[in-house]
C-alpha cells in the first residue's frame, strides 16, 4: 500500500471523496441542492446590486458631475435602455394579433385579452457557461415590483428567449430555449408538429423526427413557429429557421433550428404575464 505524507489520514482522504461524490450524485440525479445554489446566487446578486446601486453608483455620480463626459455617457446608457424597452414594446405591438389569436389561452376572454408586459433587467448571465456548456440560464430582476411566477414567456426585441422559474419575490431565473433541459412545442407552415429540445449550443434547438410515421415536409431555412401546445408559449410566433438536417438513422432525422432571438443582444427583456 502506498505510503502517505506525514500526518495525512487515509480514512479522511477516502471518506471526503466518497461524501463529495455522493453529494454530486444526489444533486445530479435529484437536483437536491438547487435551493442552496439559489440562495447563494440570490444573495450574491443582492450584494452586487446593493453595492452597485447604493455605493458604486452614487460615488460614480459624484465624480461624473465633475466631468461632463461621464454625464453624457450615463445619458447615452439611459437612452439605450429606453430604446431596448421600446423595441420590446414594438415587438409586442407587431405580434399582438398573433398573440391574441392563440387558442390555447382562455378562449372566452379572447377579445379582451390584454397582454401585460413586465420589463426586466439582466442581473446575472454567465456567458461563459452559455457558450461552453449545456446549462443556459440567466437571472433577471423585474423593473416594477411584481411577483413573477414560473412558466412565463420571456421575450427580447428579436423574439422568444425562454421561460421563467421563480427564485424569490424579486428575482427570477430564465431557462433559455437552447438549454438542454428546455422543451418547446413547434410547428412549420405545413402542419408538421414537434417538441424541440435545447441543443446546449447558443441559439440552437433540435427536434428528432421519426420518418416512419408519415411524410414530413421540411427544408433548410424553412421558418419554424411556436405551436402553442403545452399552454406556455403563444401560438404562431416565429422562433427561427431550419439550420441543418442530420440523418440519425435511415428512418430518423434530426432537425437543428437556428433561433431568431439572441439573448446577448440586449440587457432588457420583457416578461409576458
Amino acid at each position, binding site marked *: 500500500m*502506498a*505510503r*502517505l*505524507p*506525514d*500526518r*495525512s489520514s487515509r480514512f*479522511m*482522504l*477516502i471518506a*471526503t*471523496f466518497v*461524501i*463529495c*461524490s*455522493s*453529494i*454530486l*450524485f*444526489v*444533486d*445530479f440525479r435529484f437536483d437536491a*441542492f438547487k435551493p*442552496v*445554489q439559489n440562495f*447563494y*446566487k440570490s444573495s450574491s446578486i443582492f450584494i452586487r446590486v446593493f453595492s452597485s446601486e447604493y455605493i458604486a453608483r452614487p460615488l460614480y455620480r459624484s465624480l461624473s458631475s465633475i466631468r461632463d463626459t461621464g454625464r453624457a455617457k450615463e445619458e447615452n446608457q439611459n437612452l439605450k435602455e429606453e430604446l431596448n424597452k421600446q423595441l420590446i414594446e414594438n415587438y409586442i405591438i407587431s405580434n399582438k394579433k398573433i398573440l391574441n389569436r392563440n387558442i390555447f389561452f382562455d378562449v372566452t376572454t379572447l377579445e379582451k385579452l390584454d397582454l401585460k408586459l413586465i420589463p426586466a433587467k439582466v442581473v446575472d448571465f*454567465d*456567458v*461563459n*457557461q452559455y*457558450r*461552453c*456548456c*449545456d*446549462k443556459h*440560464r440567466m437571472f433577471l430582476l423585474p423593473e416594477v415590483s411584481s411577483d413573477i411566477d414560473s412558466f412565463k414567456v420571456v421575450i427580447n426585441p428579436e423574439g422568444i428567449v425562454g421561460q421563467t422559474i421563480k427564485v424569490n419575490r424579486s428575482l427570477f431565473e430564465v431557462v433559455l430555449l437552447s438549454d*438542454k433541459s428546455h422543451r418547446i412545442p413547434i410547428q412549420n407552415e405545413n402542419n408538421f408538429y414537434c417538441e424541440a429540445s435545447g*441543443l*446546449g*449550443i447558443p441559439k440552437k434547438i433540435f427536434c428528432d423526427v421519426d420518418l416512419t410515421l408519415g411524410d414530413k415536409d421540411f427544408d433548410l431555412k424553412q421558418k419554424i413557429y411556436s405551436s402553442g401546445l403545452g399552454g406556455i408559449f403563444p401560438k404562431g410566433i416565429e422562433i427561427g429557421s431550419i439550420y441543418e438536417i442530420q440523418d440519425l438513422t435511415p428512418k430518423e432525422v434530426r432537425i437543428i433550428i437556428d433561433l431568431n432571438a439572441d439573448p446577448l443582444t440586449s440587457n432588457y427583456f420583457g416578461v409576458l404575464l
Partner: protein
Amino acid sequence: MKLSELVFLTVIFILLSFFDSQVNLFLIDFFIVSNTTYLFLCYLCFRNPQKINSLFGAYIGFIIDLHQNTFFGLNATLFTLSILLINYNYFRLRMFSTLQITATFSFFTVFFVGFKGILVSTMNFQYLIVFISFFSAFFTYLFVPSLGKFLIKKTKL
C-alpha cells in the same frame, strides 16, 4: 491551517475561478480551456499536502461549484480525488523532475476537463477540447509555481 490563511486562500481561489471564466470566454472559440484554479490547487497540494488536505479541497470545490453554478459537488469531487491521488503518490512525485510533474498535472487536468465536460456539456462533448487542454495545462503549469510563490509568500503554506 489558520482562519486568516483559509480566508486568504478562499479569496485567491474565487479570484482564480473568476479569472478562468473570463479567459475562457475568449479561449472557447479556439477549443482551449483555462484551468488555472485546478492547477493552482494541485501545486499547493503537492507543495504542502499536510495543510492542503482533502477537507480543504472539498471546501474550495463546493465554493467554486456555488460560484460557477454547476452541479453541487462536481469540483469538490474532482478536487478531493486529485488530492487523494497526489497524497497516494506523493513520494513518487517528489522524485519527478519539474517537466515530469508538469506533464503529470497536465494529465490530471485532461481527466478534470473530460469529466467536467461529460457532466456539464453532455450533448456537445468535444474530444478536441480535452486533447488541447493537455497542452494548455502544460504551458499554464509552467507559470503556476511562480504565481503560487508570489501569491502565498506571506503565508507559511
